[in-house]
Every structure is written in structure tokens, then in C-alpha cells.
């Protein structure tokens, strides 16, 4: 009996040793994996706006590093918005400070969240919203939450940076600073397409909008009212997805809330976009040529209609940092 017990004890000891060794191996392996993955995040994260994917990432997250209450206008919406509104172009034209607060596939529900977040840092007097976000399905991750998620999956999300990795990427931890392009994502590709501007036809039945979309829209209108923000609805040129039904749905809402609505996909006085060279993909997102033209058009629209609430800062010394960015911006545009 005693012998059997001693055998059992020996067996248990050996078994425990084996289990302990295996558990230790797994723990060490997992720790090493986490460390390596953490380092991979540092390597692949863009270090500034010039890196691949950097302008889209930093344009969004660096908003909070703008001087408090220094932004006059905000541009909101989905990817069409961040490719279509260039704040530096607006400043260059009429001296209005602005920021593009938009994200890929952001729905109107997310725009509401982003607006609330923006108001914690800034007191804009004007909000220009690209209405394409009204037709986006609501996605789980949006705004800041999405950016945090991107941090976690940086080696996947920014994997294409393998092409431009340099020594700097292995030894530099990315630090947030002020955004140069102020949320605008400059796309240089010119996609030749044969789209033409649409024709307004109010007789086509408007597209049905979901109650949740209407509710969010109503919330945005109320927030703007409460904060004295003028709201302008714009349908940026996107011939690939634009339809009369969608436009008429927005027109209906604009009439209901008495809001200005500019559908730049149709005939609009003074707006003559060159469809052949203004898109970087097949008729959905504007490239720098299209964005420059659209922003210039909107600059004069804003100046004409909202100059009583927004000042020209170009002679104001408090905005010297903006003034100093314009030559750099011009240089960037001219290199393309």
C-alpha cells in the first residue's frame, strides 16, 4: 500500500512538473507574441501625415490639438467629405478656419456623435454636411472608437506601409500633433471616367429614409440650433452613387427644416466641375483637382451667405500658424 502511494505521489509530481512546464511554455510564448505584436503596431503606424494612410488617420485624431475655439466651420460626412472639403483651400480663398471631421463609411448617426465630440473642443459657427452619410448603413465602430480600434490592428490596417518602412519607423513612437491638412485627405490619382452631371427631377419619388436616420438628422439640427451653428447641406459630386431619389429625399428634409441644400451633382449656377479628371476612383471620391474646385466654389458661397457670422482671419496675427501653412499647401498642390 505504502509502495503504491509512493508511486502515485511520484507520478503526480512528474505530472505536475509536466503541466507546469507546459503552462509556463504557453505563458512565455503568449507574452513573446504580445510583445512582438506591440512592437509591430509601433512599426506600422504612420508616423505623420505624409506616410501611407497617415493623412486619413492623423487628420481625424489630431483634431483635438487645434487651438480651442479657433475653428469657424466644420465639414462633416463620410469618405466623400474628407476627399471633397479642403480647409486650407477655404482659408486661402476667404480666410475662414475650418476642419473636416469625417470618416470612412460614417453614417448620419456617427456624424451626430462626431459633432458632439467636436463641440467639446470648438465653437464652430457653420457646419457643412455632405449628405452621402444619410445613405450609409450604421457601422459598429465610428469616430474615436474606430481610431482606437485601428491602433490595435495597425499591422493589418497599415500593412501596405512595408513599401515605405525606414529606420525611423522602427525607432519612433508616433506622437500626435496638429494636422497639416486639417482632416482633408488629398488623393492625387486621376481616374478617367465618362460620368456627366445629373438633371434635377423632382417628380421622381424620394428614397425612403429610416426613422433612425431622420431622428439623428433631427438631433443634428437641434444641436446646431442650440449652439448657434448654421447648417448647410451639400451633396458632393458622386455620380457613381447619386440618384434623383436620394437627392429628392434630402430636398424634402431641407424644405421641412428650412435648410439650404446644394446638390452639386446637378446643374447649379456657377458650378462647372470637370467630371473627366476630378475623381480618383470610378465616380465616387473627388481627387485634389475636384476637391480644390468644390472648395473654391463653396468658399464663395460661404463668404456670400455667412460673412456676417464669420470673419476673414488672414490679417489676424492670432492666426499666423494658418497663414504659414498656405505656402506649404500651395507647394503640395503644385507638386501634383
Amino acid at each position, binding site marked *: 500500500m505504502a509502495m503504491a502511494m509512493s508511486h502515485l505521489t511520484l507520478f503526480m509530481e512528474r505530472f505536475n512538473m509536466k503541466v507546469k512546464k507546459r503552462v509556463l*511554455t504557453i505563458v512565455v510564448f503568449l507574452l513573446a507574441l504580445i510583445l512582438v505584436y506591440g512592437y509591430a503596431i509601433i512599426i506600422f503606424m504612420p508616423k505623420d501625415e505624409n506616410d501611407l494612410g497617415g493623412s486619413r488617420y492623423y487628420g481625424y485624431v489630431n483634431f483635438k490639438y487645434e487651438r480651442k475655439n479657433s475653428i469657424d466651420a466644420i465639414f462633416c460626412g463620410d469618405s466623400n467629405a474628407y476627399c471633397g472639403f479642403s480647409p486650407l483651400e477655404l482659408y486661402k480663398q476667404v480666410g475662414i478656419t475650418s476642419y473636416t471631421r469625417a470618416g470612412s463609411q460614417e453614417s448620419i448617426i456617427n456624424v451626430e456623435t462626431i459633432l458632439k465630440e467636436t463641440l467639446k473642443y470648438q465653437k464652430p459657427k457653420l457646419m457643412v454636411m455632405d449628405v452621402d452619410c444619410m445613405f450609409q448603413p450604421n457601422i459598429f465602430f465610428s469616430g474615436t472608437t474606430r481610431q482606437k480600434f485601428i491602433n490595435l490592428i495597425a499591422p*493589418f490596417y497599415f*500593412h*501596405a506601409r*512595408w*513599401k515605405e518602412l525606414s529606420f525611423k519607423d522602427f525607432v519612433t513612437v508616433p506622437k500626435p500633433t496638429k494636422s497639416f491638412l486639417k482632416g482633408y485627405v488629398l488623393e492625387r490619382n486621376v481616374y478617367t471616367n465618362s460620368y456627366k452631371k445629373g438633371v434635377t427631377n423632382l417628380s421622381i419619388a424620394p428614397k425612403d429614409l429610416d426613422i433612425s436616420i431622420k431622428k439623428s438628422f433631427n438631433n443634428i439640427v437641434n444641436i446646431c440650433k442650440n449652439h448657434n451653428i448654421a447648417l448647410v447641406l451639400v451633396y458632393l459630386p458622386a455620380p457613381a452613387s447619386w440618384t434623383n431619389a436620394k437627392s429628392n429625399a434630402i430636398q424634402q428634409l431641407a424644405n421641412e427644416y428650412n435648410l439650404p441644400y446644394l446638390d452639386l451633382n446637378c446643374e447649379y449656377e456657377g458650378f462647372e466641375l470637370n467630371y473627366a479628371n476630378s475623381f480618383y476612383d470610378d465616380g465616387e471620391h473627388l481627387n485634389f483637382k475636384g476637391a480644390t474646385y468644390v472648395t473654391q466654389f463653396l468658399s464663395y458661397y460661404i463668404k456670400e451667405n455667412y460673412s456676417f457670422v464669420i470673419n476673414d482671419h488672414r490679417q489676424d496675427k492670432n492666426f499666423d500658424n494658418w497663414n504659414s501653412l498656405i505656402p506649404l499647401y500651395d507647394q503640395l498642390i503644385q507638386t501634383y
Partner: protein
Amino acid sequence: MGFKIGIYLLLFASIVYAIYLALPKKARPFCLLAFSILFYVIYSKFLTIFLLLTILTVYFGGIAINKFNDKFALQKQGLEKEDRKKLKQKFNRKKFWVVFCVILVNLAFIGVLKYFNFFGSIFEGFFSWFNVTIHWPVLKIALPLGISYYTLTAIGYLVDVNRGKYRAGNFWQVALFIGYFPQLYEGPFARFDQLSPQLWEGKGFDANNFYGGLLSILWGFFKKMVIADRLAIIATEVFSNYAQYNGIIILLGIVLFTIQLYAEFSGIIDIASGVSELFGIKLAKNFNQPFFSRNVGEFWRRWHISLGAWLKDYIFYPVSMSRGITKLNKKMQKLNSFMQLFITSSIALLAVWLTNGLWHGAGAKYIVYGMYYYVLMLVGLCCEPLFAKIYKKMKINKDSKPMIVLSFLKTFVLVNLGMLIFRANSLTAAVKMFGGIFTGGQIDIIRTGIIDCQDFIMCFVTIAILFAVDIIKEKNINIKQWFLTRKTALKLTIVILILVLIVVFGAYGNGYVPPDPIYGAF
């Protein structure tokens, strides 16, 4: 869609795998069946009805054949030889009609869903010759997932039951055999006697199956996402806008498309085989280093092996053994044996390559694609004695290394011409592209803006890896066996390393457009 189907299959399989292992052995095959149907419903929605109809028709067809076989066995007892022969003929006729009707019904499904518009265009074209305008209605319906795969698999099963290769299975066996989810997307074509026993074994966790499956899945993803999707950047652009390019760039586009197709198709098969291996189920081999083929015949025995084997068993042999061919053979007894073989083979091969072409797609170019290989096969067959004489006279050893390499190159060139027909937007486009190869023009692909320098270099680095692995396999070195005999830590390190390579160098996400899998449309 692109790699999404692979990711979807993998995520789906992970859930099924966990549930499968938790269940008792007897319940595991039913778990596979339930999830296979769910997989199909998620993907094809109401079109699942067509899969279910195929299962039902083939199941009842098999049962009917079983009953006729049993009746014959019962009734033949005590009969004279002559009467037994007559009785057998009677039952054979009945069985033939069962098989004929089931095949007809199933071909009708695929005919309507896949070929309705194609036949309509032929019909309209035919009447337009006589200045008669016929408006054939255009059917706008998505194809049920893998209809070309499961239909042929089901037909093969019924024919085998009719041939007495095995007795028809019960409903669950037939349903799981036809609907087994890893093979539904791009095959390979399964055989009931090989797959069904494995499906019903209900194997539990096995470390070798797990690591072996994982390696196949990762290698499949590497081929699809790192190699094929990157090559697609060049191939898609060249084939879509061929008029803008000339000479070497068109040639490069065609060659890279051939390699893209190989990496993509074999990659997706590797993912399916790897997923299946997790469950301890081995799928049929579909590729065997096809670019090491000395002639196009061998190429088709190494490329899409399960399709070639299916066509051989269910088209070539039945046509070769048909009454018409047998009679023709008798009439040609005066001719020498080579001519006899040539004439009968040419008829059977015509049926094979016509089916092969039509299986690949509903369009004239696919028929031409099949006919291209048919002509090559016939020329090969015809010239074989002539070349043998030339080699003998010139004392050339056709098994010498330079001759082997030359024959590989010859086959590769011929296969690329076939791929040009297969991939070009139309036959006219194929002819124009072929002509374009021989014209000068831009040779710097980077300047054309199709691809950047780093991606272009990566194309060739990864092609080198692909061919290096094929050379190792051709030398009969079993990489998987080597991998499975390593220590766990090394196995995991290799797995993570491949994963990192896929994540970093995969042609997905920002800056890359994932292309649709080419064989996924069948």
C-alpha cells in the same frame, strides 16, 4: 468577394470545428451536414432549394437503382442463362431511364440557371441570319454557389451506383456527400466511395490533422492573398485595357494571369482541403505541379485533376464504349491500329473538350477554349509517331534534361495561349491581344502606372517562392511531413511566420482592390 470567401470559410469552419469536437462521435457527421446546409443558406439564400433538389433527385435515383438491383438478384435465381440475360437487360433499361431522368433534371437546373441567356443569344443570332427578330427573355438570377461542382459530383455518384461500383447511400450520406461545405465553393469533385466513409467516421481531435490543416490553410491564403491578388493588379489592367498596351506588357499580362489563376485556384483548394483536414477528412488532390508538364495532355492530368478525372470517367469512357463507337471500330478493322485509335479517340475527345469548355462558362470563347485543347490533343496524337521517328533519326534523347526543360517551356507557352482565350473579354479581344504581343511599345511597366516598383518586385519574389515549393514537391519531398515531425514550438513559429507574411505582404486593404475568384463563378 476575393479573399472574403476564404476568411468566411475559415471563420465558419472554426465555429463548426469547436462544436464538432464537443459532440459525441455519432453526432459529428450530422453536425457537418447541418452546418453545410447553413453555410449554403447564408451564401445562396433561397437558391439553396436547387442544392436540395439535386440531393433529393440523386438520392431517390440511387434508391431506385438499389431496388432494381435487389429485384434482379431475387428474380434471377433459378433462371436459365438466356433468361437471366434478358432479365438483366430489362432491369438495365429501367435503371438507364432512372439515371437518364435524374441527370436530365439536374442538367435542366444548371442549363436554365447558367446557360439560359447564352443559348438565347445563340437562338437570336441564328434567326437574325434569316432577318427574323426573336426576343429571348433575359434571366436575371444569381447562380447557386458551386452549382457546376455539386451537379457533376451528384451525376458522378448516380452513374457509379448504376455501374455497380457501390450501393446507393442513405439520405443523410448522400446529402452530406453532395453538400459538404469545404468543397462547395471551388471543388474538388469528390467520389462517394472515397469521401463518404471519411465523413461518417466522426474523427476527433488529432494534432497532425490540426497542424497539417493549419499549414494548408495558411499556404492557401499566402497563394491567394500574397501572390494571386498582387498578380491580378497587372493581369486585370492588361486584359481590361489591352488596347492601351503592346508587346512585352501584353505578354507579361498573359503570363502573370496564368500564374495568378494557378496561385488563386490552387490556393482556394488548399484552404478547402486544410479546413477539411481539421475534421480528419482528406479531399481529392486537384493540382500536381502543373507547370512541370511535358505536354498539354499531362498538363490536364496535373491541373484541376478532379475535373479531368470526372470527364475521363463520365464522358470519355461512356462515349468510347458507346454502341456507335463500337460499331465504328468494327467497320474500321481494315485500318491500322493507330488510325483506329485516332478516329475513336478524336470522337470521344470532342465530347470531353466540348464539355470542358462549356463547364468553364456560358460563352463562345469557352467553347473555343475547349476546342483549342481538343485540336492540341489531336495534333499531339497525330504527330507522336512522326516525332518519335525524328528523335530516333537525329539521335535526340527526349528524356535528357535540356529536352525536358524545352518540353516544359513548350507546354507553358501553349497553356498561356489557352489562358489568353479563357481570360480575354471576347474572342476578338483575344486575337487583338495576340497580335499586340508582336508590336513594339512601352516596356517599362512601372512607367505605365499599373503597379509600383515594390509590388512589381514582390510579384517575382513570391512567384519564385511558389515555384521553389513546386520544385521541392516535384522532387517528392514531403514538406508537410517534415513540418509535422517538428517540435510544437517550431511548428507554431512557422505558422506565425507565414501569418505575418500574409498580413504584411498580402495585396488587401488600402491601395489594393480584391479581385473575384475566377473559378468561384462556376
